[in-house]
C-alpha cells in the first residue's frame, strides 16, 4: 500500500487561513501523530484529506491519484476512512446498525456478516452490545464503535481526530494499544490528530507539530518526544 503525500496544502475559510503550506508524508504501517494547540488547524487538515473541505492550493496524493479535488464519496472508495472529532456514532441506531452502515459501500450482503464479526473480535465490548442503541454506550465504547465503523470497510488510510478526547487515561491507553497493533498488522497508514501528545507519541513513528496553520516540526516521534523545549513550547508539557 502506498504512502499518503501532502504537498503545500493551503486551506482558507473566507479570509481566515486555516492551513498554510503544509507538507508531509505518512507511510504505511506507521502512525503519524499530528500535534498542536487548539485551533492550530489539525482538524482542518483531516477534513481536507477526506474531502469535506477543498484546499485553495496544494496536492494530496495517494497511490498515484490526486485526492484534493475529489468528492468525499470517491475518496472514501479509495480506501480513506476518517473518524471525525466527537463521538460521531449515530445514537439513534444500534451498534450493529452503525457497523453495517460502514460496510455498505464495499461489501455485499453475504460478506458483511464476516467483516462485522471481525470488528466484534477487535472490540469485545461492542460484541456484548450489538443490539443496544449507541446512545447507551460509554465514551470509550462509543469511540470504539466510531473507529470500528471506519474499519469495517477495510480502509488503507485511517484518519483519527482526537479519539482520546474525554476518555479516562486507562481507556485511552487501551485504545492506543489497539491502534498500534492494528496499524502494524494491517499495514495501515494512520494519521492521528491529538491534543494529548504524550499518548499519541507513545505509539507514533512520525510526528508533525502544527502551529497557526503551519508545520513547525516534522520528525521522528521519538525525537519530538525527547525534545523538552519543543514540548514545553508547543505541546504544553
Amino acid at each position, binding site marked *: 500500500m502506498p504512502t499518503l503525500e501532502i504537498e503545500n496544502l493551503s*486551506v*482558507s*475559510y*473566507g*479570509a481566515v487561513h486555516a492551513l498554510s503550506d503544509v507538507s508531509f508524508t505518512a507511510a504505511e504501517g506507521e502512525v503519524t501523530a499530528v500535534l498542536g494547540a487548539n485551533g492550530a488547524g489539525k482538524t482542518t487538515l483531516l477534513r481536507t484529506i477526506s*474531502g*469535506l*473541505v*477543498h484546499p485553495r492550493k496544494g496536492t494530496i496524493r495517494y497511490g498515484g491519484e490526486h485526492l484534493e479535488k475529489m*468528492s*468525499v464519496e470517491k475518496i472514501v472508495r479509495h480506501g480513506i476512512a476518517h473518524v471525525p472529532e466527537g463521538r460521531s456514532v449515530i445514537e439513534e441506531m444500534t451498534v450493529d446498525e452503525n457497523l453495517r452502515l460502514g460496510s455498505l459501500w464495499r461489501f455485499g450482503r453475504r460478506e458483511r456478516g464476516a467483516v462485522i464479526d471481525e470488528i466484534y473480535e477487535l472490540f469485545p465490548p461492542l460484541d456484548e452490545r450489538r443490539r443496544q442503541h449507541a446512545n447507551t454506550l460509554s465514551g470509550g465504547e462509543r469511540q470504539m464503535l466510531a473507529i470500528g465503523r471506519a474499519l469495517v470497510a477495510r480502509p488503507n488510510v485511517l484518519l483519527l481526530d482526537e479519539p482520546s478526547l474525554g476518555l479516562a487515561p486507562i481507556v485511552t491507553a487501551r485504545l492506543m494499544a489497539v491502534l498500534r497493533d492494528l496499524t502494524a498488522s494491517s499495514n495501515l497508514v494512520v494519521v492521528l490528530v491529538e491534543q494529548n501528545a504524550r499518548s499519541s507519541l507513545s505509539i507514533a513513528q512520525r510526528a508533525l507539530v502544527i502551529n497557526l496553520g503551519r508545520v513547525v516540526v516534522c520528525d521522528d516521534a521519538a525525537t519530538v518526544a525527547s525534545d523538552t523545549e519543543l514540548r514545553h513550547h508547543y505541546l504544553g508539557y
Partner: protein
Amino acid sequence: MGAFRRSAQALTAKSWFRLPRQPMLRHLSFAAVAVVGLYFLTQWLSAFNDYEVGEIAFYVIALAGLTVLTGINGQISLGHGGFMAVGAFTYALLVEHTTWNLVPELLVVVAITAVSGLVIGIPATRLHGPYLAGMTLMVALGLPYLTNQYNTVFGGDQGLNTPAPTGPASVNPTEWLTWIQLAGAVIVLVLLGNLMRSRFGRSFRAVRDDEIAASLAGIHVARTKIIAFMVSAGCAGLAGAFLALSAGGVNSAEFPLALSIYILAGVVLGGTGSLMGVWWGAIIIVYLPTQWSQSLASDFHANALVSANLAVIIFGLVLVVTMLVAPGGIQGGLRWVVAKGAAYLSSGGVSNMTLSLQESTDPPVSDGESVTTIKK
C-alpha cells in the same frame, strides 16, 4: 451593575432621545428632501395616480416593519397581512364608535396592533425557522375565520365603513389622503432608520446572528424578539389603517393569504433587511397584480383564468427565483453592482449586504455537507 441598568434603560426608553445627533440629522435631511420631492410628485399626478402613490406609501410602511422583523431580527412572518387586518379593523371600529381625530386614532391603532404583536411575539420567542413560519401562517389563515365568526362586530360580509378624512377645502380629498400616507411613510422610515442605528438595532441584529452569543453579551433575547414583533406589527397596523382609508371600507375579503404573500415577496424582492429596498417592493405590490399583469395577459392573449391568476403566479415565481438567484433582492443587487464597480473587494467583506438571507460565505465545501440543524 451600572452597565446592566444602563442597557436596561436603553432598551426600554425611546431610543431617539438617546441618540447621538448625527444619524438623526442625516435622516431628517433625507426626509426633508423626500418630502419636497414627493410634494411635487403629487402635484404632477392625476387623482387616480395619487391613489396609487398613497397605496405605495402604506405598503412601504408595512414592508418596512416586516423587513425589520425578518431581515434585521431574523424572525420570519408569513402572516403579516393579519396585522394589517388588525390595524384596519381597529381603525374602522374607532371611526364607528368614537369621534376622535385622525392622528389620535392612528396612534391608538398602532398601539393596539403592537399589542397584538406582543401576543404573537411571546410564543414566537420559542420558535425558530419553519416552526415560526408555520405558526405565523396559521395566524394569517385563521383570522378571516375569526372575523366571520363574530360578524356582528366586524360587519360580516359587507364590513365596516371608513370614510376618508377631509382636509382643507382647497385640497382634493384623495390628494390630502395621499399626503397623509406619504407623510406617514416618511416618518416611519425615519423612525425605523434611527431605531436600526441605535442600540435597539444592534441588539436586533445580534439576536438574529447568534442568540447565545447575544445573551452572553447581556442582551435580553426574548425581550428583543418581542419588541421586534411589536414594532413590525405596529407598522403593519398603521398600514392597515391607511389601507382602510384608501379603500373607504374594510372587510375580511381584503385580507386574504395573498396579501401576506405579497408583503413577503415585496420584502424579499426589495432586499430583506433593507429599509430603502421597501420602495421597490411596494411599487411591485401596487402595480403588478393590477396593471402589469393585466397588460402582460393581454399581450399574450391569455384567457380569463390565466389573467386572474397571473399575479399570484408571478409573485410565487418572484419569491422562488429571487431566493435561488439573488437572495439580496434588488437592493442587494444594486449594492453588488456598486461594490463591483468600486475599488476592490476584500475576500468575504462584500457579502454583508443581505442580512440573514445571505449567500454562504463558507469555504468551498463539497455539496450536501452543511445541512443546518434547526432548533425549535
